[in-house]
Each structure stands twice: as C-alpha cells, then as structure tokens.
C-alpha cells in the first residue's frame, strides 16, 4: 500500500477536480444533514433545560397554625429544613402578608389593620422547595402529618401535567434528532451510491486490469473523508454562528426564556459534527462500494 500512497492522493484529488459537481452534491448533503442534526441537538439541550427550569420552580406552600409564636415558627422552619429531600424553606410572615395585601388593594398597612379592628387575619406561610421535583408529592404528604401546618398546596394537577410536558419535550427532542439523523444517513448513502454507480464502469475496468478491492477503495475512502470533513466544517460553522446569533437575539428581547449557552456543549457539538461528517463520508463510501466490488 505504501508504494501507492502517492497514487491514492493524486487519484482522490483528480476525482474531485473532474467531478466537481458530484463532490459539491456530497458536501451539500452532508452539510444540510448535519446542520439539521446540530440544531436538533441544541433544541434538545434547550428543551431539557427549559423543562428543568420549569420543574425547579415547583414548590410547596403551607400555612402555619395561627396560634404559633414567631419563635415556634422559626423552630418549625429549621425543623423542615432538616427533612430529607428539602432544598430550601422560605418564610412569609403574617406581617409581610398583610403588607402585600395592602399594596394589592391600595391601602397602607396601618389603615387596613385599623379597618380590620386591630387584628391581622393572615397566617404565617412557609414555602418549601424540594431537591428533586419528582419528590414534591411525597414531601407534601409528609408535611401534611406535621401538626403545626395546614392547607398544604403544591398544585397537584399542574405538577403532574408539567412533568408530563417536560417528558414530552424530551421525547420530541430525541425524536427530532433520531429522525433527522436517519434522514441524513439515508441521503448520504444515496448520494454516495449514486457517485459509485456513476463510476461503476470505471471500477469494473480497474478490477479487470488487476486492481485489488483495497486499491480501488482507498481513493473513494479518502474522498469520502475529505468531502465529509468539508461538509461537517461548514455545518459546524453554520450551526455555531446561527445558534450564537439566536441566543444573542433571544437573550436581549425575550429575557424570560432560558437559553442554553454552554461553551463545553458548543465545542462538543462542533467537534461532533466534524467527526460525524467524516464518518458519514467514509462509511458511506466503503459500504456503497462493497456491492460493486463484489461483482
């Protein structure tokens, strides 16, 4: 093989020069497929991230018995903070609640308290965050057994639906990646097959003159690698620049949408697209060639 390495690279280059048009087709197919794949991955990452950020906002609200003194409330709070599966507990005292209410209906704190006859009708309220949104339900159940608390709320139906929704988002994400991954492979293998098909006479002649399968395969393999690399590079650039542009735009206008902007993910996707392009090109070439080499 070493004696012919010069031949192989010359051959690869010549083939691309003489069929610039078929080469372009391969590059574009690889590129389109990988761009779709790349964006699908970012979509998946964002779907997962969004699901997580929705889930992380799940929390349990509970009122403290009116009879508790502020010290007892503090005790209760730190007691709950010790419970397994609890991430954090925050307290809204009855005074804060009254003040908030006053703001809502447009009076001052004192005017309402006087309206109300000097008594504050609001209870203290604890807001409990779970470490894992999946545990919210169990945590709520065990809080219900606490004698100091009543009216435990965590929006049961909403939680259930939200969990379903985030699961659904993940499935869609996987589905999109899988579907376009498959489409990419189909399109590329078709493309390579057409390439090989249009050169089957050439391949047949080479075999008749005594070329071994390996000898014929190498230039195709290198060509596939090179074209795949070019396609992958273009895809990585398009996906990278495009996604960057989208994040900048979204972050400046839609501040409430959480956007993934992860350097590591970015680099992984770029390198991944390059490698995927080369693999597609090379594997596509070799497999498509197989049928013709056997004949």
């Amino acid at each position, binding site marked *: *093989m070493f*004696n*012919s390495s*010069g*031949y192989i690279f010359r051959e690869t280059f*010549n*083939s691309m020069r*003489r*069929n610039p048009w078929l080469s372009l087709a391969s590059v574009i197919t690889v590129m389109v497929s990988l761009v779709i794949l790349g964006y699908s991955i970012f979509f998946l990452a964002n779907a997962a991230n969004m699901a997580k950020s929705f889930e992380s906002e799940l929390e349990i609200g509970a009122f403290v018995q009116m009879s508790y003194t502020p010290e007892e409330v503090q005790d209760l709070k730190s007691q709950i903070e010790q419970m397994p599966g609890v991430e954090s507990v925050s307290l809204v005292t009855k005074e804060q609640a009254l003040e908030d209410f006053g703001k809502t209906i447009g009076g001052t704190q004192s005017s309402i308290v006087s309206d109300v006859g000097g008594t504050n009708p609001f209870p203290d309220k604890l807001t409990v965050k779970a470490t894992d949104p999946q545990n919210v339900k169990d945590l709520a159940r065990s809080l219900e057994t606490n004698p100091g608390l009543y009216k435990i709320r965590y929006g049961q139906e909403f939680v259930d639906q939200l969990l379903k929704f985030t699961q659904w988002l993940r499935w869609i994400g996987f589905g999109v990646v899988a579907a376009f991954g498959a489409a990419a492979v189909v399109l590329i293998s078709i493309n390579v097959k057409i390439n090989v098909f249009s050169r089957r*006479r*050439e391949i047949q*002649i*080479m*075999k*008749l*003159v*005594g*070329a*071994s*399968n390996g*000898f014929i395969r190498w230039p195709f393999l290198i060509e596939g690698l090179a074209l795949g690399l070019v396609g992958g590079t273009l895809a990585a650039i398009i996906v990278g620049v495009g996604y960057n542009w989208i994040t900048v735009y979204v972050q400046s206008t839609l501040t409430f949408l959480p956007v993934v902007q992860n350097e590591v993910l970015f680099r992984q996707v770029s390198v991944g697209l390059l490698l995927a392009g080369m693999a597609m090109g090379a594997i596509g070439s070799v497999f498509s060639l197989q049928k013709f080499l*056997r004949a």
Partner: protein
Amino acid sequence: MIQLTNVSKIYSNGARALVDVNLKIGKGNFVFLVGPSGAGKSTLIKLLYREEIPTRGQVQINSRNLVRMKEREVPYLRRSIGVIFQDFKLLPNKTVFENVAFALEVIGVPKREVRNRTMATIDLVGLKAKEKAYPHELSGGEQQRVCVARAIINNPALLVADEPTGNLDPETAWDIMDLLYEINKRGTTVVMATHARAIVNKMQKRVIAIENGRVARDEEQGGYGYDV
C-alpha cells in the same frame, strides 16, 4: 500453460456462447482465434482472465484452476495477464499516460520507474504526442493503441488480444503485430482473436477456428481459411 476441459458457457439470457470446448495452449505459443461474428471468441478470451466463469468445465492457467479460484486471488491472476479488450475499456477520466501507468500503479511499482516505463511503452505504440489527451479526445485507432500499451507494459506471462487491430490501418496494424511478435519471442504466450485475414495468413502461426461455440479447426501454422 492454458488448458480448457469440456468448457461450456451459457449466458443468463440463454445464449450458448461456448459448447464443450477442449483446448491446450503451451507456454510461449502464439495462437490466433478466428471465426465469424458471434462465434464465441471473446467469450473464450474472457474465461482466461476470469471476467466470465464457465457454466460447465474447467479452465486452468499454469495449473491454477480459475473456476475454483477465490475472489481475492483474482487481482493477482489478472496482473500476470495483459489484456487488449475489443472495446478498449480505457478509464475515461484518465489521460493516456495515466491509463497506461495504471497497470503499474496497481502492482505498486515506484513512481520514478512508473514514469520511465510508461513513457517508453507509449512511445512504442506511437502515441508520444498524445500523452496528455483523454480517451474521448483520441481517434479510434489511437484508443486501441493505448489499450495495447497498457496490456504489454507489465511484461505479462500471458497476453490475450481481442481484435487488437480492428480500428487500425494496415500499416499501423503491422507495427502492432511486430510488437506482439517481439513480445512473444521474449517468452510471452499470446492468444489473439482477429478477423484480419492478411495478418493471419502472413504470420503462419497456430490457428484455432471457432464456429457456433465449438472448435471447428485447430492447425499449426494455419491460414485464416474462410474464402469469400
């Protein structure tokens, strides 16, 4: 060197190209295959470099059985045989030089040697001026001579030529015949299918006539033999 035993070839569409052919060709022989159009000459030749496999019977070259040969041994067989194809079979995207050099590159000859030997052989067939042309830029006879050059460059042990002068004027045809004669004298076995009566009659070599797929005549120092 070559031995065909009870060889029959029936193509998949039912055409009976060869029927029960027995043949022995010794090392260093020069053999003409003659016969009418469609008689089976090209089919017989294709059996020798294993483009086709016989439907029945055995083909042996240097005691190697071509029917039972493994797929990966075939390239090595073909490298020891030079073939002048009836339809040339030049690589359309390679220049004259590259087409001829290909037969050397396949066996891993060093680059420098490839250049020298290729240029020498192209010169032999009178195509020095066309070195950089592509097949579609050549005349019919020029294409045929490229094919001759590619077949002989390797100093093959066996040279099979299918109508190697069909597109050549008589003068150029004789130049090519001189070449084949020279190669044969250096020890290469030559099997040549041809319709060129003048050449066959003048060379006075062994003539095998094929008709309807059967060996109809086999003479040492024969003539073309069909009168018009």
